[in-house]
């Protein structure tokens, strides 16, 4: 048998039809098994790669590299002119789903809350909610999309981040690459690319359905950024800062895409 097989693979041998069939079948299945073996090897290799610098988990570095490549590809079609679809106020639902309470510790004192904006040179603005309410107000009714896959048409209002930047002369800061936001207790934190936070539908939001934000929705001030999944809509903003490197991001450290852009 082995003689018969090895004879088939002698280069100068003239093969009969039967021999050709056996030879081709052996070589073709050999390559198919090599291919499947390669797939299994590649799969195991990926799963054994070190996790990206995440603190408590995250995903394997090669996967993260592709997600970052995806950002490079898809941020090319990002435009300020691409607006999320808006709806009439009547379409907004009343029972808004609060999906998490990260960073909204019970020891929060609304009376002492201030918004801290750390400027490029290190000096910090400390603002009250009334300071923000003096700026032009923008309403938005849009389909809020959670990364889990559900969505709700909801009605929010506040000041456009781009208006806020203009009003406080944060042009130098807005020339940087990223914005970081943190809750007052620093339990929850997100990083957002500058183009997305300056998108005309991104607002520092203080109203839900025409009333002040409920506690569970991040009173007194939260981010509404329709070009991102809900994980980036940080509730109860305590601190805003600017950076050329990616600010830490709670869910990215847990394996989610940093960009999470829609």
């Amino acid at each position: 048998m082995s003689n018969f097989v090895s004879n088939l693979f002698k280069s100068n041998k003239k093969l009969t039809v039967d021999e050709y069939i056996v030879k081709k079948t052996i070589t073709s299945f050999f390559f198919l098994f090599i291919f499947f073996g390669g797939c299994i090897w590649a799969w195991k290799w990926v799963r054994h790669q070190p996790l990206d610098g995440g603190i408590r988990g995250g995903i394997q570095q090669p996967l993260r590299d592709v997600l970052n490549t995806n950002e490079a590809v898809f941020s090319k079609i990002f435009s300020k002119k691409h607006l999320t679809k808006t709806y009439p106020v009547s379409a907004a639902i009343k029972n808004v789903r609060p999906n998490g309470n990260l960073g909204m510790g019970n020891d929060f004192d609304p009376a002492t809350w201030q918004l801290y904006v750390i400027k490029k040179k290190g000096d910090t603005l400390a603002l009250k909610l009334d300071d923000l309410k003096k700026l032009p107000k923008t309403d938005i009714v849009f389909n809020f999309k959670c990364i889990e896959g559900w969505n709700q048409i909801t009605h929010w209002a506040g000041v456009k981040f781009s208006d806020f930047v203009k009003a406080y002369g944060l042009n130098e800061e807005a020339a940087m690459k990223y914005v970081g936001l943190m809750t007052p207790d620093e339990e929850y934190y997100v990083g957002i690319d500058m183009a997305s936070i300056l998108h005309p539908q991104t607002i520092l939001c203080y109203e839900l359905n025409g009333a002040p934000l409920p506690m569970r929705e991040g009173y007194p001030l939260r981010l509404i950024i329709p070009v991102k999944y809900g994980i980036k809509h940080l509730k109860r903003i305590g601190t805003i800062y600017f950076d050329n490197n990616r600010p830490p991001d709670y869910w990215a450290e847990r394996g989610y895409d940093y960009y999470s852009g829609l």
Partner: protein
Amino acid sequence: MKKIDKKHPLAIRWFHWINFPVLGVMIWSGLLIYWANDVYKVGFGDKTLIKFFPQSFYEAFHIPFRLAEGMAYHFVFMWLFFFNGILYVLYTIFSGEWRYLLPNRRSWKEAWQVLLHDLHIRKTKPPQEKYNAAQRIAYTAIIIMGIGSILTGLAIYKPVQLGWLTLIFGGYKMSRIIHFALTIGYVLFFLIHIIQVIFAGWNNFRAMVTGFEVVKIKEESIQIEPIEIEPVPVAEVLEIPQTDDDKGHGEAPQ
């Protein structure tokens, strides 16, 4: 007597076998994502016939609480699915293979005959070239489904930047439903495909690996010449002087 009949070009065999694990990873990672908001079911009124999916199903495949992992794999392997699919379509166009794959005017009628034949209701086998009419329809439909998955996938992935696409598919929710339904379609296709491959037998399956089918040529249709081995006169070889009697009939020396 056997004959080799070339059936599947090498490129198509590669596209086919690459697609198999890639689609597998896409469906698996899609399940990890779907679990986080598993709202689909089939039923009427308050009655649920099928829930996508029962808890036992999730547990059997270790689906729960892996959304981030699912999204990571989904958005990595989407590229392989996309490029493999694009190359396959381009190849079938430029090689002319599309002629065997696209349904033609007769296909719809013939596909019915194929179905009846496969269910053993009809005895005679409908005519076919490389693929029968039902295969033409199925293999073209699966490509349209693939394009549908990519487009609805993009509509869910970038519903703001590609808002027009989301709108075409009836909005964000509908895009997600179509994307999910297409996946169910793949699973059904896969099951029928496997059953058909088993029924079609080894020769057909091997063709997807080796590229050829072995065709038996009917014995009566060709004259087979018996192979005759000319006896070599040993005497000639050994240069033994020959007598007249044993000329041409030499025996091997003892």
